[in-house]
């Protein structure tokens, strides 16, 4: 997919994320909008997953460690044909499978997540399984920057380097915010690149909203043979809706009717500029 096509897709995805969060009156808005361009590139350019053959043992694996931004994942999975988009009308409602965190009851989801700090260990295990079976599949996982202080991440980072998992790629959605404030104020993890490098990873920085940079980075995996790869994606929480951008309260804010229509209008303008 060309960068322009990807950009158009992202507008559509953003619109749907907002629609379903608005309807459900629940959801994690800011972090879904910050990672959607990454998911777009993963599912439309990188991963060899196919909704018609999801049980293929050779498929690439995607595990979303920052499970709370499940709306981004659901919208992309629907567009890839894993389930009818109309299913999302039930998002977060009673007896729906489409609950507020990823669950394997939803087709296309590899792993239940939602408690932070689990995805990297899960991905290390999956990558080791691939090596054991001499498979070519790769494992991708998306972490929040606020999630990084969980000690399990650093334990997993050691294992990944120890087992030379160059079939593993972790992505950090570095939107610089979490729930209680700026990540640098809550629990600083910078310089995060130097930390991972010291742990034996190969690291690259990208603009997480730049399709060319995202494609180029993922095309270059593994960055170094015999090392796990880390993509630090610099993003903006709430990206695409100006009043949400980098605003703490939109972590799980739900737009009012007026805010929702303002957001749709802004996305409409963005779409026109891509015509």
């Amino acid at each position, binding site marked *: 997919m060309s960068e322009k096509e990807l950009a158009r897709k992202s507008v559509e995805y953003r619109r749907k994320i907002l629609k379903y969060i608005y309807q459900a009156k629940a959801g994690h808005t800011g972090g879904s909008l910050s990672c959607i361009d990454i998911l777009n590139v993963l599912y439309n350019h990188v991963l060899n997953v196919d909704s018609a053959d999801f049980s293929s043992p050779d498929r690439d694996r995607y595990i979303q460690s920052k499970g709370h931004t499940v709306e981004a994942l659901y919208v992309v999975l629907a567009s890839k044909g894993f389930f009818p988009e109309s299913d999302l009308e039930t998002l977060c409602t*009673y007896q729906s499978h489409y*609950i507020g965190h990823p669950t394997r009851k939803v087709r296309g989801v590899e792993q239940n997540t939602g408690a932070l700090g689990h995805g990297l260990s899960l991905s290390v295990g999956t990558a080791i399984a691939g090596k054991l079976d001499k498979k070519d599949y790769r494992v991708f996982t998306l972490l929040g920057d606020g999630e990084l202080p969980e000690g399990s991440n650093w334990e997993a980072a050691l294992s990944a380097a120890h087992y030379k998992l160059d079939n593993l790629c972790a992505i950090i959605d570095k939107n610089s915010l979490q729930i*209680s404030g700026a990540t640098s104020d809550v629990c600083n993890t910078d310089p995060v690149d130097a930390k991972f490098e010291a742990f034996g990873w190969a690291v690259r920085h990208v603009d997480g909203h730049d399709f060319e940079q995202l494609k180029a980075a993922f095309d270059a995996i593994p960055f170094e043979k015999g090392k796990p790869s880390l993509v630090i994606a610099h993003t903006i929480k709430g990206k695409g809706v100006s009043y949400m951008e980098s605003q703490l309260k939109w972590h799980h804010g739900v737009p009012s009717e007026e805010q929702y229509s303002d957001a749709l209008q802004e996305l409409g303008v963005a779409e026109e500029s891509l015509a």
Partner: protein
Amino acid sequence: MKKYTFTEKKDTRSGFGAGMHELGQQNPNVVALCADLVGSLKLEPFIKENPDRFIQCGISEANMIGLSAGLTIGGKIPFATTFANFATGRVYDQIRQSVAYSNKNVKICASHAGLTLGEDGATHQILEDLGMMKMLPGMTVINPCDYNQTKAATIAIADYEGPVYLRFGRPVIPVFTDADQKFEIGKAWMVNEGTDVSIFATGHMVWEAIQAGEMLEAEGINAEIINIHTIKPLDEEAILKSVEKTGCVVSAEEHNRIGGLGDSIAQVLVKHKLAPQEYVAVDDSFGESGTPAQLLEKYGLTAKHIVEAAKRAIARK
């Protein structure tokens, strides 16, 4: 049936926040810790007045528990706060080794317990925490029933020396206990004296039990209702005294039926006074998304379910 009324509804976590606010002013040794959920735990007033006595751990709960245990070595009284699933299951070994086994004066304060947090779904809805915590030797386990009682319990545990697990929640529920109550750890609270059945309830289920008592009264059944806010140490004397009189029991809790209040009561009955017991609890299951009302209905945790359980218990006498 004694009449209980309320003029407002509030969340128990706000009672915790109010208790912390007072403690901040009263006790210079109290230190609050949190793992990126300051707003959810209602800690803002404490932090505003005591910024130096607040430790933001970020999303690193295991670290927070170990750090809390360390603070006690320096003579502090740490209140470690987060959601109940991350305050217990995620950090069980830290609690077991560094807090319980070492008998450290750490207060683990947990919001969003049980099903009633709602939309976030099963990952966040812990129904096993009371069991995990009560199994730890020396751990005191408290689950107050409303805003006022949560506030009083928060203040009371600061004066008690030893590890405590304090459990509360997110939904707004009636405030029906006294604002100026004194909270006595380990002392059951007689809500209503009765003769036909003993209903032992904890946490959010106490208000449901009161409503059940009124429904039962309308059918001529006289229920004794007791608020077991302290699950450990359990007020065995109060339980036995009640069962001697009524001869049958209903236990009600927003928790798995395995390992919670009901099982603690059953142990007392088996040992001292056999009596039929019916459980109102989650039937060994994870939760799901939904409104608190929808979930309480589906998982069988409403006044109506307590009424049915009471009738079953009476029939088995």
